[in-house]
């Protein structure tokens, strides 16, 4: 079992959206197709209210700061005609020591339609999903998964390469702190469903301890061979914990900069989940590069999340 090949379903009920590892290819494909449907109607037909979630209120329970993901969920909910509420951790009873379960139970009792959970610990959305009857959406759990990011990224990739089918045979390199990356776990699992392979690039300290998966310790070794360079955000506070790596050395070996990016394969693209540390994992040149799909990732993240919300809360089966 690795970050790559674990696709078995863990029997989690269909009421929630928790991890790519627990979804079938069909389910993921349906979500991506639905996202494309929203994207078309949004940009071509100018639709701004899809009406599917009328009367429903989605609440976010974020134990970790994230403006982007939360706003993306809010935007998605509102485009679907629903309403969005925040549970403010800092000023709530959580700060007074209320248990996770008690907090979650309150949200259900307040009558929300679904809860979007982000937490610094792995597995929290799974725990909440077991305790509640309403749908739970994982908006990132520790270093485990960030499945809504992966749906949005599949939308972006299929748009760029023509279709989901076109992902078959593509090579994706994840560069950076793979061991602690929920994005790498979710996105590598998602692209694997459609036949793309992944390689993980970083210093040994940043790769999972059990490396039953292709790893490379030198970016220059693979940069000319991959179709997608997925640059992970360097969490500088984590770098400091590592003790054995310093930032300058990391930048020298793993930064995607102007010179390095010239070695990329023709037609290759760069992805980044944001927010970018310009000057660390990418330089200023790359941050403005046309090959960088980050703006599309943000845009498509909204449509991906609309598809997720619709599949859990929408009245009808999605197309």
């Amino acid at each position: 079992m690795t970050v790559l090949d674990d696709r078995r379903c863990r029997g989690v009920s269909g009421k929630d959206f928790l991890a790519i590892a627990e979804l079938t290819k069909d389910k993921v494909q349906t979500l991506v197709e639905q996202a494309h449907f929203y994207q078309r109607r949004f940009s071509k037909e100018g639709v701004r209210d899809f009406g599917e979630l009328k009367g429903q209120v989605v609440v976010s329970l974020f134990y970790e700061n994230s403006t982007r993901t939360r706003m993306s969920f809010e935007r998605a909910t509102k485009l679907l005609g629903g309403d969005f509420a925040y549970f403010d951790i800092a000023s709530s009873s959580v700060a007074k020591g209320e248990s996770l379960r008690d907090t979650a139970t309150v949200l259900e009792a307040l009558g929300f339609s679904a809860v979007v959970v982000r937490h610094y610990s792995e597995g929290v959305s799974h725990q909440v999903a077991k305790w509640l009857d309403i749908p739970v959406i994982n908006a990132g759990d520790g270093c485990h998964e960030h499945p809504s990011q992966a749906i949005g990224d599949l939308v972006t990739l299929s748009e760029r390469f023509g279709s989901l089918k076109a992902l078959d045979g593509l090579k994706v390199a994840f560069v950076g702190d793979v061991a602690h990356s929920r994005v790498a776990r979710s996105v590598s699992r998602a692209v694997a469903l459609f036949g793309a392979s992944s390689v993980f690039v970083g210093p040994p300290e940043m790769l999972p301890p059990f490396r039953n998966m292709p790893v490379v310790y030198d970016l220059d070794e693979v940069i000319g061979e991959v179709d997608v360079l997925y640059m992970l955000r360097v969490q500088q506070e984590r770098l400091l914990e590592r003790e054995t790596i310093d930032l300058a050395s990391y930048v020298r070996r793993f930064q995607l900069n102007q010179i390095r990016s010239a070695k990329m394969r023709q037609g290759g693209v760069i992805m980044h989940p944001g927010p970018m540390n310009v000057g660390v994992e990418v330089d200023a040149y790359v941050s403005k590069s046309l090959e960088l799909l980050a703006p599309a990732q943000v845009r498509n993240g909204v449509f991906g999340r609309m598809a997720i919300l619709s599949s859990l809360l929408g009245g009808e089966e999605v197309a």
Partner: protein
Amino acid sequence: MWIRGGKLFDGEGFKESDLAVSQDRIRKVGDQETPPLGTRVIDAGGRYVGPAFVDLHTHSRTPGKDGSETADTLVRAAALGGYCFMVAMANTDPVVDSVDLYKDLTRSFARYSVEVLQAASVTKRREGNELVDMVSLHEAGAVFFSDDGDVISDARLMKKALEYSRRLGVIVAEHAQDERLSYGGVMNEGEISSELGVSGIPEDAESVVVARDLELNRVVKGNLHLMHLSSLGSIELLRHARSAGIPFSSEVTPHHLLLNDSELREFNTNYKVNPPLRSEQTRRALLRAFRADLFDVVGTDHAPHARHLKERSIREAPFGLIGLQSAFSATISALVDSEEGDMGNTEVDTSFIEESLALIFRKMAVAPQRILESVTGVKAKVPAYVVVDPSSKSSLQESDLVSMSKNSPYIGRELRGSVASLVIGENVLVDEGRLVEEGIINAR
């Protein structure tokens, strides 16, 4: 008190025999004998009879953590698990590092028929910096010393404690785990932790300390007890130490024999335990080593945590699971049902079950008693016996648990084996699987 109609454990196997138990002695009863008038008779109904269990590794939570367990709930859980005697760890609040507290606790536990031997910590406040006054504590009666919950990091202190253990005739029990290697870890470091992104506790965090302690004891020859061993490296080190004549005793837990780290896939915090549940490969190796007599005792590491503490994230929830009430079932299930090829077998050979049951009586009753007595001279005050059924299968319900805390990994899991009766001297504590309230408090 007579126990009739059972198959009695004779140290090796089982023979049909009746037993007379009193406060100060036991004897086999001849075929022709009839019980004297007024003798209480327990009908074993063809089940197995053996010495009641002894746990060298219980967290009583008294004092200071009575939201998780009280002495009253603890002894009831122990009784239902077939235990007559247990050693209560010192990681309480405050830590048991003083003569006064040791004496208070010893006095307060004395009211129960299940005996509780209070351990003392090895270092003051379990901070690892300064030894407790082992001599005075020993004079007050303490014979078991452990910083369990934490390792004794300082090799020099550990060596000193081992020296005292030899001189005083007490046990020093180590929670072998390098603090730096295990730092921040939540579960076993392995394929599953890599898959889940959960930070790991590697097996070598344990083995390096086991290696250190055995090496220290090569010369010192103290009474080193290595707790809850869980690594391939530890197994190798124990083999080597045994052949090199280095003294030690060792413990394995029921959960490390039965469960593996894939349980964490559901992020159920009841599986968060320290040392962590290991890979299936290591679990099997532990089971083989257990059968091969490498571990001396089975210890439960019964660690109650109140519900609100376990209903936190996998990172924040405390380590530990409750194990007293289910120890017999978990261990017999591990031995009989969890080995390669045995999974799902409905028909299990009687001789295989009896062999496993004999191992359980040796490791859960005879050996812990023997170690305690041979090192410290302390032994259970009154003889105690259990009647067990190693074959019946049932699924544990949360409502079956009498511990104040419900953090059992076995809830909803079908396990083999049950404890039918527990007799301590003339007290019946458990009869047909049910607690007998009058038996809990020691009449004398």
